[in-house]
């Protein structure tokens, strides 16, 4: 086993916010766990279940057929992806991002672009408030319903 590789992986994870990581290759597998130190922080909103591989055999409890454009809890909101595609914070590599953390946004304001099949789809805010977090790095694939921004509502 390449110990340097393992150390690098561990360092990577230690430096991150993650609590547990498992990596496996043909003949190599690693799993790292870190206990949360911030368990007192209150947590507002259910994750929209992006983890198909856990709890395999539990029945679906969510049969909503309306597009979950946002999930709401008190004064905080998530803007979720209404389509599958690649997330971009700006209209082009040279442009400024549509929004930054701390920005105040209005309902209908463009927050980002999701590219699907070479089409740039502008994603608008469904509420007004302040962007508190951008949940997805620029240029990453997102699936339907995946949270993109946290907004603290007016």
């Amino acid at each position: 086993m390449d110990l340097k590789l393992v150390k690098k992986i561990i360092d990577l994870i230690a430096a991150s916010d993650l609590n547990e990581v498992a990596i496996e290759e043909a003949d190599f597998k690693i799993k790292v766990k870190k206990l949360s130190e911030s368990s007192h922080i209150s947590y507002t909103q259910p994750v929209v279940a992006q983890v198909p591989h856990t709890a395999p055999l539990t029945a679906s409890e969510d049969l909503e057929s309306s597009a979950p454009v946002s999930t709401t809890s008190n004064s905080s909101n998530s803007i979720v992806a209404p389509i599958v595609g690649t997330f971009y914070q700006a209209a082009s590599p040279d442009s400024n991002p549509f929004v930054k953390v701390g920005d105040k946004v209005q309902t209908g304001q463009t927050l980002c672009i999701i590219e699907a099949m070479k089409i740039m789809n502008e994603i608008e805010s469904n509420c007004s408030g302040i962007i508190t977090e951008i949940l997805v790095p620029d240029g990453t694939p997102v699936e339907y319903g995946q949270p993109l921004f946290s907004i603290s509502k007016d």
Partner: protein
Amino acid sequence: MFNKILIANRGEIALRIIRTCKEMGIPTVAVYSTADKDSLHVKFADEAVCIGPASSRDSYLKITSILAAAEITNADAVHPGYGFLAENAEFSRICDEHNIKFIGPSPEAISSMGDKAIAKVTMINSKVPVVPGSDGVVSCYEDAKAICDEIGFPVIVKASSGGGGRGMRVVMDASELQKSFDMCRNEAKTAFNNPEVYIETFVQNPHHVEIQILADQYGNAISLGERDCSLQRRHQKILEEAPSPLLTPKLRKKMGEAAINAALSVKYEGAGTVEFLVDDELNFYFMEMNTRIQVEHPVTEQITGFDLIEEQIKIAAGMSIADYLVKLTGHSIECRINAEDPEFNFQPSAGEITVFHPPGGQGVRLDTHVYSGYLIPPNYDSMIAKLIVTAKTRPEAIIKMRRALQEFIIEGIKTTIPYHIQLMDDPNFNQGSVSTKYLETTFTYKSEEKLNF
């Protein structure tokens, strides 16, 4: 071979395709709607992408979302399964344009078989027997009258864009013709946005016998024998078997050749099914060609030893079938187990499956995506399992199917299992091939309530 296949479907066929991909060592991407997030195809695929809400229109039928999912996962091929986009020429075309291999025939082959009138002309030109009738579309009553005078009554008026029992009217004699012709056109316009109709001799007591073919990119096409799908309710197949109890070896050969001609006439590629009507005198007529894998493909797999999904993938990847040999062994039956209540006119029975105990043992195959605790979404079709048995002979297969059905326990919802059990005891079914009208006109399901009291 492909690096990664995206499966543009759900349910048992998505799982079926994943199984073969796993056996072929090809990574898979499942796509799913929010209603299917706990489905086994999501669990067993290597990757899964949520593509939309429960409504099929916004998920499994949404080409842009599926293609976007293929793009972000770097899938280089798409398997469409059956239903949804499987016979959508536009989908096949767009996949091509995006350099994603559509595992199925060309857009042109799909289109020419998708329009019934065009398909019929193509068959006539390829010397495939068709039901006597109009050469393509009949636009006015006068033409309709002339054709009926030539071929005689009864006739059937069919919408070019119809299918699955929709958009067709039987005309028993000349007095009904004008009214039926006009109504069928109007209905076709409303239902399919295309008023075109054609006219054919109405074949009485027909049997539904279809030939499974494989065709590769090099002009090779072979027949894998037939399936008898005469047991239907409202044009929905409910039980299929191979071989057909109706066919003779000679007729099998003739129909196989006709099916191969049909496939070659549209430069077909992949697995396809040519459906024929066969009458009691063993005349056979081209009905339509399905340009996809069929629900009932496993019975052909069981008696030929082929894995048809594997063949679809290999053909799509450019492999030749020139040296394939086909040998039919034994008899196989498939019962479609639907979440429907046979007591109440087969009304769909969505809800949670609280107990799911599948049958097992020798000669029993089960293709299903459900399990104990599975919640059947109300959004999609009601088929929850395909129970397939294989034995040396048809009587042995029927006995084995009865045994397997009897040990198949599903609780929490209503299913068609009791219906199939009674069918296994039906003397006419046991005797041989029945007509496609049999279940609706002759077979009587005895309510379980009545049986118990």
